[in-house]
Protein backbone atom coordinates (compact mmCIF):
# COMPACT_ATOMS: atom_id res chain seq x y z
CA UNK A 1 0.00 0.00 0.00
CA UNK A 2 1.11 3.51 -0.69
CA UNK A 3 2.41 5.42 2.25
CA UNK A 4 2.72 9.02 1.07
CA UNK A 5 -0.58 10.54 -0.05
CA UNK A 6 -1.21 11.48 -3.70
CA UNK A 7 -3.60 14.22 -4.83
CA UNK A 8 -7.32 13.41 -4.77
CA UNK A 9 -8.58 12.60 -8.29
CA UNK A 10 -12.19 11.51 -7.63
CA UNK A 11 -14.24 13.35 -5.07
CA UNK A 12 -17.96 12.79 -4.40
CA UNK A 13 -19.97 14.96 -2.01
CA UNK A 14 -23.51 14.18 -0.85
CA UNK A 15 -24.00 12.15 -3.99
CA UNK A 16 -27.58 10.95 -4.33
CA UNK A 17 -29.13 9.00 -7.17
CA UNK A 18 -32.81 8.13 -7.27
CA UNK A 19 -34.81 6.26 -9.88
CA UNK A 20 -38.52 6.85 -10.16
CA UNK A 21 -40.66 3.97 -11.35
CA UNK A 22 -44.26 5.08 -11.17
CA UNK A 23 -44.97 5.74 -7.50
CA UNK A 24 -41.96 3.90 -6.11
CA UNK A 25 -38.62 5.59 -5.69
CA UNK A 26 -35.39 3.60 -5.59
CA UNK A 27 -32.40 5.42 -4.12
CA UNK A 28 -29.30 3.28 -4.61
CA UNK A 29 -26.96 6.13 -3.66
CA UNK A 30 -27.82 8.42 -0.77
CA UNK A 31 -25.59 11.28 0.39
CA UNK A 32 -22.51 9.31 -0.52
CA UNK A 33 -19.02 10.76 0.05
CA UNK A 34 -15.88 9.43 -1.59
CA UNK A 35 -12.30 10.65 -1.99
CA UNK A 36 -9.94 8.61 -4.12
CA UNK A 37 -6.26 9.37 -4.56
CA UNK A 38 -4.64 9.40 -7.93
CA UNK A 39 -3.10 6.09 -9.03
CA UNK A 40 -5.14 3.94 -6.67
CA UNK A 41 -6.82 0.66 -7.62
CA UNK A 42 -10.19 0.65 -5.87
CA UNK A 43 -12.49 -2.37 -5.63
CA UNK A 44 -16.18 -1.62 -5.08
CA UNK A 45 -18.14 -4.42 -3.45
CA UNK A 46 -21.63 -4.85 -2.16
CA UNK A 47 -24.76 -6.91 -2.54
CA UNK A 48 -26.65 -7.06 -5.82
CA UNK A 49 -28.74 -3.94 -6.35
CA UNK A 50 -26.70 -1.91 -3.88
CA UNK A 51 -25.81 0.69 -6.57
CA UNK A 52 -22.27 -0.29 -7.57
CA UNK A 53 -22.92 0.04 -11.29
CA UNK A 54 -24.82 3.25 -10.69
CA UNK A 55 -21.84 4.80 -8.87
CA UNK A 56 -19.42 3.56 -11.53
CA UNK A 57 -21.54 5.05 -14.30
CA UNK A 58 -21.65 8.41 -12.54
CA UNK A 59 -17.86 8.38 -12.16
CA UNK A 60 -17.56 7.46 -15.84
CA UNK A 61 -19.85 10.33 -16.84
CA UNK A 62 -22.47 8.24 -18.61
CA UNK A 63 -25.01 8.83 -15.85
CA UNK A 64 -25.56 11.87 -13.67
CA UNK A 65 -26.46 12.21 -10.00
CA UNK A 66 -29.88 13.39 -8.83
CA UNK A 67 -28.17 15.69 -6.35
CA UNK A 68 -24.74 16.28 -4.84
CA UNK A 69 -21.51 16.85 -6.69
CA UNK A 70 -18.74 14.83 -8.25
CA UNK A 71 -15.37 16.36 -9.05
CA UNK A 72 -12.77 14.57 -11.11
CA UNK A 73 -9.30 16.00 -11.51
CA UNK A 74 -10.60 19.36 -10.29
CA UNK A 75 -13.43 19.47 -12.80
CA UNK A 76 -16.96 19.30 -11.46
CA UNK A 77 -18.43 16.89 -13.97
CA UNK A 78 -21.88 16.96 -12.37
CA UNK A 79 -22.19 20.49 -13.75
CA UNK A 80 -21.25 19.63 -17.31
CA UNK A 81 -23.73 19.51 -20.18
CA UNK A 82 -24.37 16.26 -21.98
CA UNK A 83 -22.08 17.09 -24.87
CA UNK A 84 -19.31 18.50 -22.64
CA UNK A 85 -19.51 15.30 -20.66
CA UNK A 86 -19.20 13.20 -23.82
CA UNK A 87 -16.06 15.05 -24.90
CA UNK A 88 -14.59 14.82 -21.42
CA UNK A 89 -15.34 11.09 -21.25
CA UNK A 90 -13.62 10.47 -24.57
CA UNK A 91 -10.38 11.88 -23.17
CA UNK A 92 -10.50 10.97 -19.49
CA UNK A 93 -12.27 7.65 -19.03
CA UNK A 94 -11.62 4.12 -20.19
CA UNK A 95 -14.66 1.91 -19.60
CA UNK A 96 -14.33 -1.87 -19.34
CA UNK A 97 -17.63 -3.77 -19.46
CA UNK A 98 -18.49 -7.12 -17.94
CA UNK A 99 -19.62 -8.41 -21.37
CA UNK A 100 -16.75 -6.69 -23.25
CA UNK A 101 -19.17 -5.00 -25.70
CA UNK A 102 -16.87 -5.29 -28.69
CA UNK A 103 -18.41 -4.59 -32.10
CA UNK A 104 -18.82 -8.03 -33.65
CA UNK A 105 -18.20 -7.05 -37.29
CA UNK A 106 -14.95 -5.26 -36.49
CA UNK A 107 -11.58 -6.92 -35.94
CA UNK A 108 -9.69 -6.60 -32.67
CA UNK A 109 -7.56 -3.88 -34.27
CA UNK A 110 -10.58 -1.97 -35.56
CA UNK A 111 -12.33 -2.23 -32.20
CA UNK A 112 -9.34 -0.79 -30.39
CA UNK A 113 -9.06 1.96 -33.01
CA UNK A 114 -12.67 3.14 -32.47
CA UNK A 115 -12.07 5.79 -29.77
CA UNK A 116 -9.27 7.35 -31.85
CA UNK A 117 -11.31 7.71 -35.06
CA UNK A 118 -12.95 10.86 -33.75
CA UNK A 119 -9.77 12.43 -32.44
CA UNK A 120 -7.49 14.81 -34.23
CA UNK A 121 -4.49 12.56 -34.67
CA UNK A 122 -2.73 11.38 -37.77
CA UNK A 123 -3.20 7.96 -39.26
CA UNK A 124 0.31 6.86 -38.43
CA UNK A 125 0.03 8.08 -34.84
CA UNK A 126 -3.24 6.19 -34.54
CA UNK A 127 -1.67 3.03 -35.84
CA UNK A 128 1.24 3.39 -33.46
CA UNK A 129 -1.04 3.79 -30.46
CA UNK A 130 -3.31 0.87 -31.37
CA UNK A 131 -0.35 -1.47 -31.88
CA UNK A 132 1.18 -0.26 -28.66
CA UNK A 133 -1.85 -1.05 -26.48
CA UNK A 134 -2.48 -4.35 -28.26
CA UNK A 135 1.07 -5.26 -27.34
CA UNK A 136 0.49 -4.16 -23.73
CA UNK A 137 -2.40 -6.61 -23.41
CA UNK A 138 -0.45 -9.30 -25.27
CA UNK A 139 -2.68 -9.59 -28.33
CA UNK A 140 -0.51 -8.19 -31.12
CA UNK A 141 -0.77 -11.55 -32.92
CA UNK A 142 -4.59 -11.58 -32.79
CA UNK A 143 -5.32 -8.10 -34.07
CA UNK A 144 -7.05 -9.19 -37.27
CA UNK A 145 -9.32 -11.67 -35.48
CA UNK A 146 -12.99 -10.95 -35.05
CA UNK A 147 -14.49 -11.09 -31.53
CA UNK A 148 -16.18 -14.43 -32.27
CA UNK A 149 -12.76 -15.90 -33.04
CA UNK A 150 -11.41 -14.93 -29.61
CA UNK A 151 -11.85 -16.48 -26.16
CA UNK A 152 -13.70 -14.55 -23.45
CA UNK A 153 -10.41 -13.63 -21.78
CA UNK A 154 -8.96 -12.42 -25.07
CA UNK A 155 -12.09 -10.40 -25.80
CA UNK A 156 -11.75 -8.71 -22.43
CA UNK A 157 -8.11 -7.88 -23.22
CA UNK A 158 -9.22 -6.26 -26.46
CA UNK A 159 -11.75 -4.28 -24.44
CA UNK A 160 -8.98 -3.23 -22.02
CA UNK A 161 -6.82 -2.18 -24.95
CA UNK A 162 -9.74 -0.12 -26.30
CA UNK A 163 -10.15 1.52 -22.88
CA UNK A 164 -6.42 2.31 -22.73
CA UNK A 165 -5.84 3.57 -26.24
CA UNK A 166 -6.85 7.17 -25.50
CA UNK A 167 -4.50 7.18 -22.50
CA UNK A 168 -7.23 8.15 -19.99
CA UNK A 169 -6.57 9.13 -16.36
CA UNK A 170 -9.14 6.71 -15.01
CA UNK A 171 -10.13 3.16 -15.90
CA UNK A 172 -13.50 1.94 -14.69
CA UNK A 173 -14.46 -1.72 -14.89
CA UNK A 174 -17.83 -3.27 -14.07
CA UNK A 175 -17.27 -6.88 -13.00
CA UNK A 176 -14.62 -7.33 -15.69
CA UNK A 177 -14.09 -10.97 -14.75
CA UNK A 178 -17.73 -11.78 -14.01
CA UNK A 179 -18.06 -13.83 -17.17
CA UNK A 180 -14.65 -15.51 -17.16
CA UNK A 181 -13.27 -18.77 -15.78
CA UNK A 182 -10.88 -18.59 -12.81
CA UNK A 183 -7.67 -18.76 -14.84
CA UNK A 184 -8.67 -16.07 -17.34
CA UNK A 185 -10.00 -13.95 -14.51
CA UNK A 186 -6.67 -14.08 -12.69
CA UNK A 187 -4.94 -13.19 -15.87
CA UNK A 188 -7.12 -10.13 -16.48
CA UNK A 189 -6.85 -8.97 -12.88
CA UNK A 190 -3.08 -9.10 -12.77
CA UNK A 191 -3.00 -7.31 -16.11
CA UNK A 192 -5.20 -4.55 -14.67
CA UNK A 193 -3.08 -4.24 -11.57
CA UNK A 194 0.12 -4.16 -13.56
CA UNK A 195 -1.22 -1.58 -16.04
CA UNK A 196 -2.45 0.57 -13.18
CA UNK A 197 0.96 0.42 -11.63
CA UNK A 198 3.08 0.87 -14.77
CA UNK A 199 0.95 3.52 -16.45
CA UNK A 200 -0.14 5.29 -13.23
CA UNK A 201 -3.82 4.84 -13.94
CA UNK A 202 -6.50 5.26 -11.33
CA UNK A 203 -8.76 2.19 -11.48
CA UNK A 204 -12.26 1.73 -10.10
CA UNK A 205 -13.47 -1.86 -10.36
CA UNK A 206 -16.82 -3.28 -9.32
CA UNK A 207 -16.71 -6.90 -8.24
CA UNK A 208 -18.65 -9.54 -6.34
CA UNK A 209 -15.61 -11.64 -5.85
CA UNK A 210 -13.42 -11.23 -2.77
CA UNK A 211 -10.54 -12.82 -4.60
CA UNK A 212 -10.83 -10.31 -7.40
CA UNK A 213 -10.97 -7.49 -4.84
CA UNK A 214 -7.70 -8.72 -3.34
CA UNK A 215 -5.91 -7.49 -6.49
CA UNK A 216 -6.95 -3.94 -5.66
CA UNK A 217 -5.10 -1.89 -3.11
CA UNK A 218 -8.27 -0.64 -1.47
CA UNK A 219 -11.77 -2.09 -1.08
CA UNK A 220 -14.96 -0.21 -0.26
CA UNK A 221 -18.41 -1.68 0.39
CA UNK A 222 -21.68 -0.11 -0.67
CA UNK A 223 -24.34 -0.50 1.99
CA UNK A 224 -27.65 1.32 2.09
CA UNK A 225 -26.47 3.98 -0.31
CA UNK A 226 -23.19 4.71 1.49
CA UNK A 227 -19.60 3.47 1.39
CA UNK A 228 -18.11 1.55 4.26
CA UNK A 229 -14.36 1.08 4.47
CA UNK A 230 -13.97 -2.21 6.30
CA UNK A 231 -15.35 -5.51 5.20
CA UNK A 232 -18.63 -6.30 6.95
CA UNK A 233 -17.80 -9.99 6.79
Amino acid at each position, binding site marked *: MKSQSSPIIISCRNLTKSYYKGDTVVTPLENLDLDLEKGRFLALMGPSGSGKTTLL*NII*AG*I*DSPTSGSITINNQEISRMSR*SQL*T*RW*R*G*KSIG*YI*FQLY*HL*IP*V*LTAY*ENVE*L*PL*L*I*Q*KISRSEREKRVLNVLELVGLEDRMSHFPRQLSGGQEQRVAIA*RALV*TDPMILVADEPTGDLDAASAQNILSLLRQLGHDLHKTIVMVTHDVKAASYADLTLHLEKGKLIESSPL
Partner: protein
Amino acid sequence: MWIWNLLSLTFVQLRRHPVRSMLTLLGVIAGMFLFVTIEIMQNSLRRSTEISAEDATLVVYRQNRFCPFASRLPQSYEQKIAKIPGVREVYPIQIVVNNCSTSLDVVTFRGIPKNKMDSFQKNFTLLSGSIDSWKQRSDAALVGRILAERRRIKVGDKLDAAGITVSVAGIIESDNLQNLNVGYLHLDYLQQASRVGLGIVTQFNVLVDRPEQMESIAHAIDDTFRYDQDPTSTRPEKAFIAQAIEEVALLIQSGRHVGWAALITVFALVSNTILLSIRGRVREYAVLQTLGYENIHLLWMVVLEGMMLGMLGGLVGLLGSASLVYFGHFTLSADALSVVFTVEPKTLAIGLVTSLLLGFLAGLVPTWCVTHQNIVDNLRAE
Protein backbone atom coordinates in the same frame (compact mmCIF):
# COMPACT_ATOMS: atom_id res chain seq x y z
CA MET B 1 -10.71 14.53 -40.53
CA TRP B 2 -12.87 12.25 -38.42
CA ILE B 3 -15.55 12.19 -41.10
CA TRP B 4 -13.29 10.22 -43.44
CA ASN B 5 -12.53 7.77 -40.66
CA LEU B 6 -16.24 7.30 -40.03
CA LEU B 7 -16.82 6.93 -43.76
CA SER B 8 -14.44 4.02 -44.00
CA LEU B 9 -15.78 2.58 -40.73
CA THR B 10 -19.32 2.70 -42.13
CA PHE B 11 -18.16 1.11 -45.35
CA VAL B 12 -16.51 -1.72 -43.42
CA GLN B 13 -19.71 -2.27 -41.45
CA LEU B 14 -21.80 -2.39 -44.64
CA ARG B 15 -19.38 -4.82 -46.25
CA ARG B 16 -19.50 -7.13 -43.28
CA HIS B 17 -23.27 -7.33 -43.39
CA PRO B 18 -23.23 -8.45 -47.03
CA VAL B 19 -26.69 -9.99 -47.28
CA ARG B 20 -28.53 -7.10 -45.72
CA SER B 21 -26.53 -4.55 -47.71
CA MET B 22 -27.01 -6.38 -51.01
CA LEU B 23 -30.77 -6.72 -50.54
CA THR B 24 -31.12 -3.05 -49.74
CA LEU B 25 -28.88 -2.14 -52.67
CA LEU B 26 -31.01 -4.25 -54.98
CA GLY B 27 -34.08 -2.29 -53.94
CA VAL B 28 -32.31 1.03 -54.37
CA ILE B 29 -31.01 -0.03 -57.79
CA ALA B 30 -34.50 -1.02 -58.96
CA GLY B 31 -36.06 2.17 -57.61
CA MET B 32 -33.42 4.48 -59.04
CA PHE B 33 -33.49 2.63 -62.36
CA LEU B 34 -37.19 3.33 -62.59
CA PHE B 35 -36.84 6.93 -61.49
CA VAL B 36 -34.00 7.77 -63.88
CA THR B 37 -35.66 6.02 -66.82
CA ILE B 38 -38.77 8.08 -66.29
CA GLU B 39 -36.68 11.25 -65.90
CA ILE B 40 -34.96 10.49 -69.20
CA MET B 41 -38.34 10.07 -70.86
CA GLN B 42 -39.60 13.35 -69.45
CA ASN B 43 -36.50 15.19 -70.59
CA SER B 44 -36.58 13.63 -74.02
CA LEU B 45 -40.20 14.69 -74.40
CA ARG B 46 -39.25 18.22 -73.48
CA ARG B 47 -36.34 18.25 -75.92
CA SER B 48 -38.35 16.66 -78.71
CA THR B 49 -41.08 19.26 -78.63
CA GLU B 50 -38.77 22.13 -77.83
CA ILE B 51 -37.51 24.28 -80.62
CA SER B 52 -35.23 27.14 -79.85
CA ALA B 53 -36.54 30.69 -79.67
CA GLU B 54 -34.68 31.85 -82.77
CA ASP B 55 -36.33 29.09 -84.77
CA ALA B 56 -38.74 30.67 -87.21
CA THR B 57 -40.38 27.76 -89.00
CA LEU B 58 -44.11 27.52 -89.70
CA VAL B 59 -45.83 24.31 -90.71
CA VAL B 60 -48.65 24.55 -93.25
CA TYR B 61 -51.02 21.57 -93.07
CA ARG B 62 -54.34 20.72 -94.66
CA GLN B 63 -57.07 22.14 -92.46
CA ASN B 64 -58.75 19.64 -90.11
CA ARG B 65 -56.34 16.87 -90.99
CA PHE B 66 -53.95 15.38 -88.47
CA CYS B 67 -52.43 12.29 -90.02
CA PRO B 68 -49.89 12.70 -92.83
CA PHE B 69 -51.92 10.24 -94.95
CA ALA B 70 -54.85 12.61 -94.85
CA SER B 71 -53.11 15.92 -95.41
CA ARG B 72 -52.83 16.52 -99.14
CA LEU B 73 -51.97 19.94 -100.50
CA PRO B 74 -51.15 20.99 -104.07
CA GLN B 75 -47.41 21.51 -104.46
CA SER B 76 -48.25 24.62 -106.48
CA TYR B 77 -49.11 26.47 -103.24
CA GLU B 78 -45.34 26.92 -102.94
CA GLN B 79 -45.19 29.87 -105.31
CA LYS B 80 -48.14 31.64 -103.66
CA ILE B 81 -46.69 31.22 -100.17
CA ALA B 82 -43.26 32.40 -101.32
CA LYS B 83 -44.79 35.70 -102.46
CA ILE B 84 -46.11 36.60 -99.00
CA PRO B 85 -43.89 39.35 -97.51
CA GLY B 86 -41.56 38.14 -94.74
CA VAL B 87 -41.31 34.57 -96.09
CA ARG B 88 -37.70 33.63 -96.68
CA GLU B 89 -37.98 30.05 -97.89
CA VAL B 90 -40.69 27.48 -98.56
CA TYR B 91 -40.04 23.73 -98.41
CA PRO B 92 -42.73 21.48 -99.85
CA ILE B 93 -42.54 18.22 -97.92
CA GLN B 94 -44.15 14.87 -98.55
CA ILE B 95 -44.35 12.63 -95.49
CA VAL B 96 -44.74 8.88 -95.54
CA VAL B 97 -44.76 6.82 -92.40
CA ASN B 98 -44.77 3.06 -92.01
CA ASN B 99 -47.19 3.21 -89.11
CA CYS B 100 -49.43 6.13 -88.41
CA SER B 101 -50.54 5.18 -84.92
CA THR B 102 -48.53 5.30 -81.71
CA SER B 103 -45.63 2.91 -82.02
CA LEU B 104 -42.09 2.21 -80.82
CA ASP B 105 -40.55 1.52 -84.23
CA VAL B 106 -41.77 4.17 -86.61
CA VAL B 107 -39.88 5.08 -89.76
CA THR B 108 -40.76 8.42 -91.24
CA PHE B 109 -39.74 9.44 -94.74
CA ARG B 110 -39.77 13.10 -95.65
CA GLY B 111 -39.50 14.05 -99.28
CA ILE B 112 -37.88 17.38 -100.04
CA PRO B 113 -37.13 18.91 -103.47
CA LYS B 114 -33.59 18.18 -104.57
CA ASN B 115 -32.82 21.84 -105.28
CA LYS B 116 -33.93 22.86 -101.76
CA MET B 117 -31.46 20.61 -99.99
CA ASP B 118 -28.65 23.16 -100.09
CA SER B 119 -30.51 25.54 -97.83
CA PHE B 120 -32.38 22.85 -95.87
CA GLN B 121 -29.21 21.04 -94.81
CA LYS B 122 -28.34 23.68 -92.22
CA ASN B 123 -30.93 21.93 -89.99
CA PHE B 124 -28.51 19.09 -89.39
CA THR B 125 -24.90 17.96 -89.57
CA LEU B 126 -23.64 14.99 -91.51
CA LEU B 127 -22.01 12.22 -89.47
CA SER B 128 -21.09 10.24 -92.59
CA GLY B 129 -21.83 10.24 -96.30
CA SER B 130 -22.34 13.39 -98.36
CA ILE B 131 -25.01 15.71 -99.72
CA ASP B 132 -23.61 15.34 -103.23
CA SER B 133 -24.11 11.59 -103.30
CA TRP B 134 -27.65 12.20 -102.05
CA LYS B 135 -28.25 14.52 -104.96
CA GLN B 136 -26.81 12.10 -107.46
CA ARG B 137 -29.13 9.18 -106.73
CA SER B 138 -32.87 9.61 -107.01
CA ASP B 139 -33.52 6.88 -104.40
CA ALA B 140 -30.99 8.29 -101.95
CA ALA B 141 -31.81 9.00 -98.29
CA LEU B 142 -30.23 11.00 -95.49
CA VAL B 143 -31.02 9.02 -92.34
CA GLY B 144 -31.24 10.30 -88.75
CA ARG B 145 -28.74 8.81 -86.29
CA ILE B 146 -31.24 7.11 -83.98
CA LEU B 147 -33.08 5.49 -86.89
CA ALA B 148 -29.79 4.34 -88.40
CA GLU B 149 -28.61 2.85 -85.08
CA ARG B 150 -31.92 1.16 -84.44
CA ARG B 151 -31.99 -0.41 -87.91
CA ARG B 152 -28.20 -0.94 -87.86
CA ILE B 153 -27.64 0.68 -91.22
CA LYS B 154 -24.73 2.70 -92.59
CA VAL B 155 -23.94 4.64 -95.73
CA GLY B 156 -24.37 2.44 -98.82
CA ASP B 157 -26.97 0.17 -97.17
CA LYS B 158 -30.57 -0.20 -98.29
CA LEU B 159 -33.41 0.83 -96.01
CA ASP B 160 -36.83 -0.74 -96.44
CA ALA B 161 -39.90 0.78 -94.87
CA ALA B 162 -43.50 1.53 -95.76
CA GLY B 163 -43.05 -0.43 -98.96
CA ILE B 164 -40.32 1.90 -100.18
CA THR B 165 -36.68 0.98 -100.66
CA VAL B 166 -34.03 3.66 -100.42
CA SER B 167 -30.28 3.76 -100.49
CA VAL B 168 -28.51 5.41 -97.57
CA ALA B 169 -26.37 8.36 -98.73
CA GLY B 170 -25.65 9.91 -95.33
CA ILE B 171 -26.30 9.72 -91.57
CA ILE B 172 -27.32 12.96 -89.87
CA GLU B 173 -27.22 14.40 -86.35
CA SER B 174 -29.39 17.33 -85.28
CA ASP B 175 -30.38 19.49 -82.32
CA ASN B 176 -33.93 19.11 -83.52
CA LEU B 177 -34.55 15.60 -82.22
CA GLN B 178 -37.24 14.96 -84.82
CA ASN B 179 -34.52 14.79 -87.47
CA LEU B 180 -32.91 11.83 -85.67
CA ASN B 181 -35.76 9.48 -86.52
CA VAL B 182 -36.43 10.34 -90.18
CA GLY B 183 -35.08 9.64 -93.64
CA TYR B 184 -34.89 12.59 -96.07
CA LEU B 185 -35.68 11.52 -99.64
CA HIS B 186 -36.05 13.26 -102.98
CA LEU B 187 -39.58 14.64 -103.12
CA ASP B 188 -40.43 13.33 -106.58
CA TYR B 189 -39.10 9.87 -105.77
CA LEU B 190 -41.21 9.65 -102.63
CA GLN B 191 -44.31 10.99 -104.37
CA GLN B 192 -44.04 8.26 -107.00
CA ALA B 193 -42.99 5.45 -104.72
CA SER B 194 -45.82 6.12 -102.32
CA ARG B 195 -48.31 6.43 -105.22
CA VAL B 196 -49.47 9.80 -103.94
CA GLY B 197 -48.49 11.17 -107.27
CA LEU B 198 -46.47 14.15 -108.41
CA GLY B 199 -47.73 17.55 -107.43
CA ILE B 200 -49.19 16.56 -104.07
CA VAL B 201 -47.41 17.21 -100.75
CA THR B 202 -48.28 16.70 -97.09
CA GLN B 203 -47.14 20.04 -95.76
CA PHE B 204 -45.01 23.10 -96.32
CA ASN B 205 -42.32 24.17 -93.92
CA VAL B 206 -42.07 27.94 -94.16
CA LEU B 207 -39.05 29.80 -92.90
CA VAL B 208 -39.82 33.42 -92.05
CA ASP B 209 -37.39 36.31 -91.79
CA ARG B 210 -38.17 37.31 -88.20
CA PRO B 211 -39.69 35.10 -85.47
CA GLU B 212 -42.06 37.87 -84.35
CA GLN B 213 -43.72 37.80 -87.77
CA MET B 214 -44.72 34.14 -87.41
CA GLU B 215 -48.27 34.82 -86.31
CA SER B 216 -49.16 37.38 -88.95
CA ILE B 217 -47.59 35.34 -91.74
CA ALA B 218 -49.50 32.24 -90.57
CA HIS B 219 -52.74 34.22 -90.87
CA ALA B 220 -51.72 35.52 -94.28
CA ILE B 221 -51.06 32.00 -95.55
CA ASP B 222 -54.37 30.62 -94.27
CA ASP B 223 -56.21 33.65 -95.70
CA THR B 224 -54.65 33.06 -99.11
CA PHE B 225 -56.16 29.56 -99.39
CA ARG B 226 -59.34 30.09 -97.38
CA TYR B 227 -61.66 29.68 -100.35
CA ASP B 228 -59.53 27.11 -102.18
CA GLN B 229 -60.51 23.48 -102.47
CA ASP B 230 -57.78 22.69 -99.94
CA PRO B 231 -57.80 25.25 -97.12
CA THR B 232 -54.75 25.28 -94.83
CA SER B 233 -53.96 25.46 -91.17
CA THR B 234 -50.63 27.09 -90.32
CA ARG B 235 -48.86 26.93 -86.95
CA PRO B 236 -45.36 27.33 -85.60
CA GLU B 237 -43.48 24.03 -85.83
CA LYS B 238 -43.24 23.71 -82.05
CA ALA B 239 -46.99 24.01 -81.54
CA PHE B 240 -47.53 21.65 -84.43
CA ILE B 241 -45.29 18.96 -82.93
CA ALA B 242 -46.73 19.42 -79.48
CA GLN B 243 -50.23 18.87 -80.78
CA ALA B 244 -49.31 15.87 -82.91
CA ILE B 245 -47.75 13.97 -80.08
CA GLU B 246 -50.14 15.19 -77.43
CA GLU B 247 -51.28 11.72 -76.45
CA VAL B 248 -47.78 10.33 -76.38
CA ALA B 249 -46.84 13.28 -74.22
CA LEU B 250 -49.70 12.61 -71.81
CA LEU B 251 -48.62 9.01 -71.57
CA ILE B 252 -45.06 9.98 -70.76
CA GLN B 253 -46.08 12.72 -68.36
CA SER B 254 -48.28 10.35 -66.39
CA GLY B 255 -45.12 8.30 -65.79
CA ARG B 256 -43.93 11.13 -63.58
CA HIS B 257 -46.05 9.80 -60.71
CA VAL B 258 -44.44 6.42 -61.08
CA GLY B 259 -41.09 8.20 -60.78
CA TRP B 260 -42.11 9.85 -57.54
CA ALA B 261 -43.44 6.58 -56.21
CA ALA B 262 -40.10 4.95 -57.02
CA LEU B 263 -38.32 7.64 -55.00
CA ILE B 264 -40.62 7.16 -52.03
CA THR B 265 -39.97 3.42 -52.21
CA VAL B 266 -36.23 3.98 -52.17
CA PHE B 267 -36.55 6.35 -49.23
CA ALA B 268 -38.71 3.97 -47.22
CA LEU B 269 -36.45 1.03 -48.00
CA VAL B 270 -33.21 2.72 -46.99
CA SER B 271 -34.82 4.28 -43.94
CA ASN B 272 -36.21 0.94 -42.86
CA THR B 273 -32.89 -0.84 -43.35
CA ILE B 274 -31.12 1.75 -41.27
CA LEU B 275 -33.80 1.72 -38.60
CA LEU B 276 -33.60 -2.06 -38.31
CA SER B 277 -29.83 -2.04 -38.27
CA ILE B 278 -29.90 0.60 -35.56
CA ARG B 279 -32.45 -1.34 -33.52
CA GLY B 280 -30.11 -4.28 -33.61
CA ARG B 281 -27.22 -2.09 -32.56
CA VAL B 282 -28.70 0.02 -29.78
CA ARG B 283 -26.05 -1.24 -27.41
CA GLU B 284 -23.32 -0.68 -30.00
CA TYR B 285 -24.21 2.99 -30.23
CA ALA B 286 -24.34 3.25 -26.44
CA VAL B 287 -20.84 1.76 -26.32
CA LEU B 288 -19.66 4.31 -28.89
CA GLN B 289 -21.20 7.09 -26.80
CA THR B 290 -19.38 5.74 -23.77
CA LEU B 291 -16.17 5.87 -25.80
CA GLY B 292 -16.75 9.58 -26.40
CA TYR B 293 -18.72 9.62 -29.67
CA GLU B 294 -20.82 12.76 -29.78
CA ASN B 295 -24.21 13.14 -31.43
CA ILE B 296 -22.62 14.66 -34.50
CA HIS B 297 -20.43 11.58 -34.94
CA LEU B 298 -23.33 9.18 -34.59
CA LEU B 299 -25.40 11.34 -36.92
CA TRP B 300 -22.79 11.10 -39.63
CA MET B 301 -22.27 7.39 -39.13
CA VAL B 302 -25.95 6.72 -39.72
CA VAL B 303 -26.38 9.30 -42.45
CA LEU B 304 -23.25 8.11 -44.26
CA GLU B 305 -24.64 4.60 -44.25
CA GLY B 306 -27.77 5.87 -45.96
CA MET B 307 -25.80 7.98 -48.40
CA MET B 308 -23.53 5.10 -49.31
CA LEU B 309 -26.47 2.80 -49.97
CA GLY B 310 -28.17 5.58 -51.91
CA MET B 311 -25.13 6.45 -53.96
CA LEU B 312 -24.04 2.90 -54.79
CA GLY B 313 -27.57 1.82 -55.65
CA GLY B 314 -28.24 5.05 -57.49
CA LEU B 315 -25.07 4.74 -59.55
CA VAL B 316 -25.80 1.19 -60.67
CA GLY B 317 -29.47 1.99 -61.26
CA LEU B 318 -28.78 5.01 -63.41
CA LEU B 319 -26.02 3.32 -65.39
CA GLY B 320 -28.48 0.53 -66.11
CA SER B 321 -31.14 2.97 -67.15
CA ALA B 322 -28.76 5.02 -69.28
CA SER B 323 -27.45 1.98 -71.13
CA LEU B 324 -30.97 0.68 -71.69
CA VAL B 325 -31.98 3.95 -73.30
CA TYR B 326 -28.70 4.47 -75.12
CA PHE B 327 -28.45 1.00 -76.64
CA GLY B 328 -32.19 0.55 -77.03
CA HIS B 329 -32.61 3.53 -79.43
CA PHE B 330 -36.23 3.94 -78.39
CA THR B 331 -38.55 6.40 -80.03
CA LEU B 332 -42.22 6.82 -79.37
CA SER B 333 -44.09 8.24 -82.34
CA ALA B 334 -47.49 9.47 -83.34
CA ASP B 335 -48.58 11.05 -86.62
CA ALA B 336 -45.08 10.76 -88.06
CA LEU B 337 -43.55 12.75 -85.23
CA SER B 338 -41.46 11.20 -82.52
CA VAL B 339 -40.24 11.51 -78.99
CA VAL B 340 -36.64 10.40 -79.32
CA PHE B 341 -35.21 9.07 -76.07
CA THR B 342 -31.74 10.42 -75.47
CA VAL B 343 -29.60 10.39 -72.31
CA GLU B 344 -28.35 13.75 -71.09
CA PRO B 345 -25.53 13.98 -68.52
CA LYS B 346 -27.68 16.44 -66.61
CA THR B 347 -30.35 13.82 -66.03
CA LEU B 348 -27.77 11.38 -64.69
CA ALA B 349 -26.36 14.04 -62.38
CA ILE B 350 -29.84 14.76 -61.05
CA GLY B 351 -30.37 11.04 -60.47
CA LEU B 352 -27.14 10.70 -58.53
CA VAL B 353 -27.74 13.77 -56.37
CA THR B 354 -31.29 12.60 -55.70
CA SER B 355 -30.19 9.20 -54.49
CA LEU B 356 -27.50 10.75 -52.27
CA LEU B 357 -30.05 13.14 -50.81
CA LEU B 358 -32.57 10.36 -50.25
CA GLY B 359 -29.94 8.32 -48.42
CA PHE B 360 -29.11 11.35 -46.30
CA LEU B 361 -32.75 11.99 -45.40
CA ALA B 362 -33.35 8.30 -44.78
CA GLY B 363 -30.62 8.41 -42.13
CA LEU B 364 -31.93 11.46 -40.29
CA VAL B 365 -34.96 9.96 -38.55
CA PRO B 366 -33.15 6.89 -37.20
CA THR B 367 -30.33 9.12 -35.93
CA TRP B 368 -32.70 11.16 -33.89
CA CYS B 369 -33.81 7.96 -32.15
CA VAL B 370 -30.23 6.99 -31.29
CA THR B 371 -29.08 10.30 -29.93
CA HIS B 372 -32.12 10.94 -27.78
CA GLN B 373 -32.00 7.80 -25.71
CA ASN B 374 -30.34 7.11 -22.40
CA ILE B 375 -26.87 5.58 -22.65
CA VAL B 376 -27.17 3.57 -19.44
CA ASP B 377 -30.51 2.06 -20.51
CA ASN B 378 -29.15 1.23 -23.94
CA LEU B 379 -26.06 -0.45 -22.49
CA ARG B 380 -28.40 -2.83 -20.67
CA ALA B 381 -30.30 -3.55 -23.90
CA GLU B 382 -30.57 -7.14 -25.26
